[in-house]
């Protein structure tokens, strides 16, 4: 894994390699078997098939023929895949074949020890790889619901269904009509405009107030710092539905309910904690003697803030702002209470749309939002790295 060998590899006895390969084949067989009606048959067939393949590859053909053997195994899996499921089977078979052709030699030739220190016991080696698999499984569990949405949004039908045409990779099964629907429907476009009108202003308010609060709260002489901090952070901790219901009645009394500015204020209140937290964290690494130096040279506090402090804490401010933006952009509970039909945001429309008509337009919007979120989070990560580099915390 690291490209160099820590432990010399040695060939493993078949009594060890074959059961391991068989077990892996059984797991893969479980999926294939379940898809074809019988999980148990799949496990048995997969295990037997893989043990046979392993035996042939490791004992009969041997290391000398590794390259040819691996291509043979891939071809075998591809052929089986095509027989079972056509074009999708071709791709899945190729992937399975590629994995197992590598796996058989990886186990059989003992290569899995190469990147591990030589003193590890068998149990420790097992745990090392079990840990990797566990992490991978958790990752898959987290990411699959998001990944499933993306192909479904190209569905040619008006249902959340992988149609047979889609599974055959037939172009007729796919269409951009849900994207077209999103970009041409006045309701969705109004919602997009509302979201784009509300989120930036809410972000601006959160960033301004949050940054000022963070700077104030990180100076030593402010009384009740912890209590004030706790109150400012509370929108993040109090269940959203409670804040929302409270805001609804409060805003109704003062005439803000159902107005654009009401929603902006509500979202700003939700965004402020994120800004406070990120800016406070950045301020920990900020050298206070710089402000004193600036004051010493005649700069007033405002100049000091904009010329000295702000550029240095900017990454924290921006990442807080991004969080505040995403909060406002993704928020549905508060806007349902505080907004009226004129302030319908994208999440509001998705929420009602999902309840009243299960239309893949929602999936198209979800895909677009996922892409936007990824773009924003990437920006965030790049800024974080830049900030670390500037502060000399990482080599680059």
């Amino acid at each position, binding site marked *: 894994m690291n490209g160099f060998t820590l432990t010399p590899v040695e060939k493993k006895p078949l009594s060890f390699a074959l059961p391991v390969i068989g077990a892996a084949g059984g797991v893969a067989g479980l999926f294939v078997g379940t898809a074809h009606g019988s999980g148990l048959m799949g496990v048995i067939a997969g295990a037997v098939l893989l043990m046979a393949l392993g035996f042939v590859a490791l004992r009969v053909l041997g290391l000398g023929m590794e390259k040819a053997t691996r291509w043979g195994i891939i071809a075998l899996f591809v052929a089986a895949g095509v027989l079972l499921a056509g074009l999708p089977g071709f791709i899945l078979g190729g992937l399975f074949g590629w994995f197992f052709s590598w796996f058989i030699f990886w186990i059989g030739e003992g290569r899995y020890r190469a990147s591990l220190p030589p003193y590890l016991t068998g149990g420790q080696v097992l745990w090392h790889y079990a840990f990797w698999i566990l992490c991978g499984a958790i990752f898959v569990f987290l990411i699959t619901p998001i990944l499933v949405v993306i192909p479904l949004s190209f569905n040619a039908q008006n249902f959340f269904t992988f149609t047979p045409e889609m599974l055959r990779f037939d172009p007729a099964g796919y269409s951009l009509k849900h994207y077209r629907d999103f970009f041409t429907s006045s309701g969705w476009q109004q919602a997009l405009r509302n979201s784009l009108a509300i989120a930036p202003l809410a972000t601006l308010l959160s960033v301004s107030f949050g940054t000022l609060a963070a700077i104030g709260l990180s100076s030593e002489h402010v009384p009740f710092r912890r209590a004030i901090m706790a109150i400012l952070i509370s929108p993040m901790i109090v269940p959203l539905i409670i804040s929302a219901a409270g805001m609804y009645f409060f805003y109704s009394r003062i005439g803000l309910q159902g107005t654009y500015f009401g929603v902006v204020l509500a979202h700003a209140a939700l965004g402020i904690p994120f800004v406070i937290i990120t800016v406070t964290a950045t301020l920990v690494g900020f050298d206070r003697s710089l402000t004193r130096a600036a004051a010493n040279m005649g700069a007033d506090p405002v100049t000091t803030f904009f010329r000295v402090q702000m550029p240095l804490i900017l990454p924290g401010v921006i990442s807080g702002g991004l969080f505040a933006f995403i909060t406002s952009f993704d928020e549905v509970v508060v806007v349902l209470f505080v907004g009226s039909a004129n302030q319908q945001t994208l999440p509001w429309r998705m929420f009602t749309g999902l*309840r009243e008509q299960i239309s893949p337009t929602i999936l198209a919007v979800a895909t677009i939002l996922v892409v936007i979120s990824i773009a924003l989070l990437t920006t965030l990560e790049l800024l974080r790295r830049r900030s670390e580099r500037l502060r000399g915390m990482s080599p680059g």
Partner: protein
Amino acid sequence: MKLTKTLFATTALTVVAGTALTAQDMANSMTLVSWGGAYQDSQDKAYVKPYLAANPGVTATWDESSAEAVAKLRAMNEAGNVTWDLVDVVASDAMRLCDEGLAMELDHDEVLAAAPDGTPASEDFGDLIVSDCFVPQIVYSTTFGYRTDMVPAGVEPPTSVCDVFDLAKYPGKRSLQKRPIDNMEWALYCDGVAKDEIYDVLGTDEGVNRALAKLDTIKDQVVWWSAGAETPQLLADGEVFMGSTYNGRLFSAIAEQNQPIGMMWDMQSFDLDGWIVPAGLPADRLARVMDFLKFATDTQRLADQAAYISYGPARASSAPLVGKHADLGIEMAPHMPTDPANASNTHIYDYEWWADNRDDLDAKFQAWLAQ
């Protein structure tokens, strides 16, 4: 200030008296509350767009909140800030809102247009005016659809509601609405209770247990739904073999989306959907909404709506005017729940009985579900 108030009050009175108003007295925006989806589209096309075209400068905003209309109107009333002008609700919700004083009582003959032949509105709508606050728009039904390609080989496709309870003949999952209404009645009917005795039997503890026992026979094959979009989705996925939903949803899945789904009209359960006006609207908004309401519920407009969705217009005088589907060009009359061929055996859902027994049966039904 006092003068304006008096003026507004007089305008409100003149509205109720049905006198024509000048546009200056009316607010120029409305918030209409409906169910979203194809149903709201049909309203938009049949009467909101034409109304806005005839009244330049007026805007209408849709709020898809009918599902929680009762709760939201209560909250708005409590906060003293009613932002809705006209709310589309099912008949039972209209009755509740009327009882709680959250909806305005109307004199149907005065605020609604008469039929073209001069029949007053109250006679044209007839029995469908189930509450003084309620202006019916459509008759819809909750009925069953099934996957035509999942009917077992060599078996006739299902035609009777009792086929839902017949797991031996028609194996597979069913989707039913997660509430006692309709399900209890269908269960008793299929357990051999005569149609006109269903509510008498359901009024006794033994009757309730009998209905639940019948539902028990299919319970492990039931997927429970709460939103109207779920059954069409489940049927399109092939997740269920048959399921109940609103007939317009099934029509849309069959005729517009070309799904392999068949209709079962047997023992369809009729229900009504219509408008209520929230109580306590300011005079200018009330004037506007009354003007719209009169337009939107006249004979022609209700008939127009049927060109977009297969729900029966609530006015008797609209039925002969029902034409073809706006996009597909098929005759809509045979797809109406009220069509004689579809309505040969229907279930008349008893509002009053359910109003009295709903809470009790809801509790029993939920307890049974949790078992």
